[in-house]
């Protein structure tokens, strides 16, 4: 494996989403490490420092993504975090990180809805990694 490749941590409990997104991101030229649950991701983060993390919101718990983002930022404040969910389409609840109020409790750099096109996702990753 190319050691210079940036590592992206991808956490989602939907194995099909994981498979597809991994394939996309690998084609952008990144290395992808996946976890299928908040617990598995926490374990990984003990030894791994990714260059960027993409987290699902609702996994074991409805707020798994938020908790994971919080823990990740506490350990690695400089790692950008994207929360990717379908929660708005499904529940009508909207979250975002555009206001100060939300940024106070949602420890993420970007909030995206699942279903975003691969090239859009690529652009966002590049922006956050400042490449």
């Amino acid at each position: 494996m190319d050691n210079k490749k940036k590592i992206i941590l991808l956490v989602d409990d939907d194995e099909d989403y994981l498979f597809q997104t991994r394939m996309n991101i690998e084609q952008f030229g990144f290395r992808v490490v996946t976890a299928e649950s908040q617990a598995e991701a926490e374990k990984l983060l003990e030894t791994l420092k990714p260059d960027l993390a993409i987290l699902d919101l609702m996994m074991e718990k409805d707020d798994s993504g938020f908790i994971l983002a919080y823990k990740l930022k506490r350990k690695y404040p400089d790692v950008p975090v994207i929360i990717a969910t379908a929660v708005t389409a499904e529940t009508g609840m909207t979250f975002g990180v555009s206001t100060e109020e939300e940024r106070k409790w949602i420890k993420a750099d970007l909030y995206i809805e699942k279903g975003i096109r691969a090239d859009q996702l690529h652009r966002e990753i590049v922006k956050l990694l400042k490449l």
Partner: protein
Amino acid sequence: MEKLNVLVVDDEPGICSGISRILSRYTVGFPFMDENIGFDVQETHTGEEAVTIIDVKVPDIILLDNKLPGMQGIEVLEYINKKNLDTVVLMITSYASLELAIKATNHGAHDFIPKPFTPQELKSAIESVTKHIFLRRMTRKLNKEGRQIRFQFLSVLSHELKAPLNAIEGYLRIMEERQAGNDLDGYNKIIERSLVRVRGMRNLIMDLLDLTRIESGKKKREVAPVNLTEIARMSIDTMGPISIQKDVKIHLDAPGEVIIEADREEMEIIFNNLLSNAIKYNIEGGRVDCLIKDEHGAVTVTVNDTGIGIPEEEIPKLFQEFVRIKSDKTKHISGSGLGLSIIKRLARLYKGEISVKSKPGVGSSFTVKFPNNSGT
């Protein structure tokens, strides 16, 4: 005690205080209500004052005299009607004028109390209005809850239906863009996963059909004597392929004939759901025991497995629609999350019930009890 607010609008102080006195000691009760309903009475002598009071807080009941010094009773009624306020108006009329009665009814007056009236006449009018209010409230509450449940069901359902479509669409995109190269072999996993999701969706739709048939009651039920042991055997046969795949052995322990009055198809659904769960959530090389007992016409069907078991805290959620216990062990087991809710509904049609005992890591035991031949 719950109290309804009553506003009395009458320019004769004697009438107002009389009504207050009677109603303050009067309560209305129904056999199906936990407690009686009492009344808080407020008095006013003009239509203008009445409107001011109504603007602050809409009373539950308004006793409205028509003949008032300034603004007439019918005008107050028009005002209430125009603002579409949630209140019931009883008109107090001193002389019976058909014209007024029609006008008042058109403006939403609930009833009339002729003046002069006896305390008994007042009480019975109030009793009827109270019942009306109570029933209206209950109906609204039920409608709202029904809608709420329906809404939740539909939003979860649309998620369950969309998820496989999204997954399959994603896989097709990958193929369309030849992301794994030009060799078809590179797409094996993608094709396999797409087929898994298609199967999952089909099962969900089949379960949904079962569920709506039970719910709507539209399916013609054919209740006749059926032999549960025979249905169990057939169901075990149906489960053959998945039990072989999982290397799970199914044992049947039942008398040759256990006859109950039932719809055959419904019994098949119950057995298929119980057995497929017991296999799906079992360990490789596990065992399923299906026991049927007939105790003086009360029949129990028990299905035991040696599977992963259910954590105690998850058991109360188990029979709700679309609830699937999420854990590392269940992650790769497909299911619609409707099976147990279907069994529960079916069992209820027979005045029966389903219960569960489970120990994580040891196994689960589901029992459906049918009381004495109550097939309809």
